């Protein structure tokens, strides 16, 4: 049953995952944390950090991790394969269908229209991780170090395009000394 659920979840994400790894991250979060409750919100944050710091596509990393924690080695292979399955099917159909200019322009315009919605999707994923499980010292009358980390990382990432791996490492060091 868990295998069927993993297959269904990741095939769905493979079909609807427009706009890169972060867009898929929000789909994965909804299924894994909210819908099936396979993971807590802190597990999810830890998983994203680990997937971000390791080489390879972040969505494959997430699929492997989710599959492994829910159903072991078999689950991890199944989840990664399920994520690729729609792409495999598409190679044969889309290649012939969309390699002409007219339909390609249509696809591009569609994706342009999708972008604002996908941005909202990703923002919602970030918002729903803003809770006291991930911000342990929030509202407890102590120094709000977690809020400080979040704001600083946001500024460094948004304005200065700082390397995310470096930011994760620095935050880990701050956490080690602060908590």
């Amino acid at each position: 049953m868990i295998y069927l659920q993993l297959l269904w979840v990741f095939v769905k994400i493979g079909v609807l995952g427009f706009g890169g790894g972060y867009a898929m991250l929000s789909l994965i979060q909804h299924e894994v944390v909210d819908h099936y409750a396979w993971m807590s919100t802190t597990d999810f944050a830890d998983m994203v950090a680990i997937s971000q710091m390791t080489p390879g596509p972040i969505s494959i990393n997430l699929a492997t991790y989710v599959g492994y924690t829910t159903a072991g080695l078999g689950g991890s292979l199944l989840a990664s394969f399920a994520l690729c399955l729609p792409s495999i099917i598409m190679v044969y159909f889309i290649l012939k269908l969309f390699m002409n200019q007219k339909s390609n322009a249509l696809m591009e315009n569609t994706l342009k229209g999708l972008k604002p919605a996908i941005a909202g999707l990703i923002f919602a994923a970030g918002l729903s991780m803003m809770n006291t499980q991930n911000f342990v010292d929030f509202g407890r009358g102590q120094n709000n170090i977690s809020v400080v980390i979040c704001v600083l990382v946001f500024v460094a990432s948004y304005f200065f395009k700082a390397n995310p791996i470096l930011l994760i490492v620095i935050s880990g060091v701050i956490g080690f000394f602060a908590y």
Partner: protein
Amino acid sequence: MKKALQLFLTFFRIGAFTLGGGYAMLSLVEKAVVDQKKWIPTDEFWDMIAVVQSLPGVFAVNTALYVGHRVAGTKGAFAAMLGAIIPSIVIILLLATVFREYRDQPVVERIFKGIRPCVVALILAPSLRMIKSAKVSWKTAIIPIAAVFLIWWCKISPAYVILAAIAGSLIYAVIINRRETARLRDYETSRSPEVPKSRSQNEKEAES
């Protein structure tokens, strides 16, 4: 078969050493596939990437599949895809096993208490950058706001939001396309009678 093996090794190497996901990988793929192996000409490669970018799914996997398919058919597609994902799967499996073992250690817990708020910021930042790059105006700002409201507040699955957005932007794209072709037609019809007229005028001027 030899080509399939080479494809596997090429994408394996790129998959094992590229941090930062699909787009970071792209220049390495170009270097290997276009410059070194000369499997695909440069312009054909970028035409292909333009199509692959607008497809759903994992960008790195899609790129591997299309390059592999173009170079060595079905065998090539699977070889390149496996090369692109196997390093990820192996590394994550190793890390997940280790992490499961040590996560309850107080030291690890302290480190991750610092990392979690960082992850939240790392998710929020690219979404706002995306809004900026999509040139969202005050009029179209309703789209991301509605998406956030539906998913975060109403707990509606992002899958439905994407489906609705696809439907909306497909209609929009069709209208845009039709408008553009109509404009092109108008432009051509408005221009064509002028051409002989101006030519005859020129001829008259030349005669006089």
